[in-house]
């Protein structure tokens, strides 16, 4: 394993200790629940989407540092994006965190989300990083079922 600091970068520790957009929107247009039964992580994501644009996003729940930071970073990243832009971002993000550990990931356009790239070296923790994103996809697709990483 490379240094643990690759996983627990300052950005991640900051977002874990001070999660942004924490809570729930009062009148969300979209909402979904995500659950990782393996570790008990649970989060609720609420979105305000107007004319195909994500106006606001919040999350609530509890989880490990990686899943909390990932959810917090997600809410920042998707605000102002169109729905198709968020799908594209999810795919880019997913590619990076599931890339082989020894690869050099292409972080262009990921912004602060790049801080989570270190997760690819910790296969057991990839689900922690992707839970919020799967929940986002579920919220946008309008599927009422809670998503699970299992």
């Amino acid at each position: 394993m490379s240094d643990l600091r690759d996983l627990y970068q300052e950005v991640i520790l900051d977002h874990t200790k001070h999660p942004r957009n924490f809570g729930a929107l009062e009148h969300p247009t979209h909402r979904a629940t995500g659950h990782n039964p393996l570790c008990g992580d649970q989060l609720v994501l609420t979105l305000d989407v107007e004319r195909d644009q994500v106006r606001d996003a919040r999350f609530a729940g509890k989880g490990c540092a990686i899943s909390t930071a990932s959810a917090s970073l997600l809410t920042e990243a998707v605000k102002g994006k169109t729905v198709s832009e968020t799908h594209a971002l999810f795919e880019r993000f997913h590619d990076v965190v599931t890339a082989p550990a020894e690869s050099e990931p292409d972080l262009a356009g990921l912004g602060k989300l790049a801080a989570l790239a270190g997760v690819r070296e910790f296969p057991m923790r990839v689900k922690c990083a992707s839970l919020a994103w799967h929940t986002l996809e579920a919220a946008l697709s309008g599927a009422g079922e809670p998503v699970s990483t299992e």
Partner: protein
Amino acid sequence: MSFDALRVAREFPILSRQVHQKPLVYLDSAASSQKPSAVIDAVSNYYRTTHSNVHRGVHTLSEEATRAYEAARESVRSFLNAASPREIVFVRGTTEGINLVAQAYARPTLRPGDEILVTELEHHSNLVPWQIVAGQTGAKVVMAPIDERGDVIVEEFAARLGPRTRLVALAHVSNSLGTLLPVAQLAQLAKRAGATVVIDGAQGVPHLPVDVRALGGDFYAFSGHKMYAPTGIGALWGRLDLLDAMEPWQGGGSMIRSVTFAKTEFARAPERFEAGTPDIAGAVGLHAAIDWLRGLDLDAVHKHEADLLDYASERLREIPSVRLIGTAKQRVGLVSFVVGDVHAHDVGTILDGEGIAVRAGHHCAQPVMEHFDVPATARASFAVHNTRADVDRLAAGVRRVLEIFG
């Protein structure tokens, strides 16, 4: 003579490897123990020299394999101080043993409204099989609570024993808290109420001398892989009169006396419950593990592990913001803890980076996590090969968690 854990550790080949360029400290034996050479060699030698199917052929190998398999059964009998080898059923592990009792004993006897009493600290494997059989029969599962330290509250347990209590299922030692239950006392109360007592011995046998007759239950299940034997083998002890009265739960070869299309007669216990080719090599490995463990002197082992547990509790308590989960009057083999509000999985990942293997999660005991209002804990569990130096590495690793999470 004091117990020489370092010498014992040298008998485990895996302990000489490194993890993340650091010498491995293995503190996850409650999940699955590592194997000494004596066990690895026994399994390997069995395959190299003896293997064949059991109870089948008249040829030499089959006879030798059968003898090895039945010798393993006798060693389990002696290990548990059971009355007869016929009371020892080989199973895959504790989970299968408990499911066997649930399906072959409880399912045909339970009536709607009957009660199965389990304690709050049970592993899911001593809860879910009872929920399943309750669903099948209309019986219900009743829970006996634990207190804030993690001890079963004996008065509450007794108060839940009633005329409808048919079955009581309890752990010998809690896998998430390390609580040693007063099994003999609880079994006596249950028996007095007319209930059948099933004991989950998964965390008992690796650490304590077990005498099933002194404990006073009716069934006792354990896994080999948590007591230095291979995975895939375990045993269920059951009182012979109960086993003999039970119908089979799986059909197939080995468990029959005669078969025609009109009528099949089943073999008696224990073969009746061992359909199909068993894990012969696993049984041989279990035999080797029992011999090896007994060779160490079980009382000395118990003392050594108790010392490690005390020492670990002390070292962890010194660290600010570490909270021990489960402080029962008598604990065995493990310590569960949380580090501030750092999630257990982050603790586990950072310790792994230091070469230290612990379990992080809910330990298949979600009701216990709920009781202590934590999503998960980190758990360090001890084996014969662990030393105080391992505990020092653990304490240093936990301090590293605090450094990173500051």
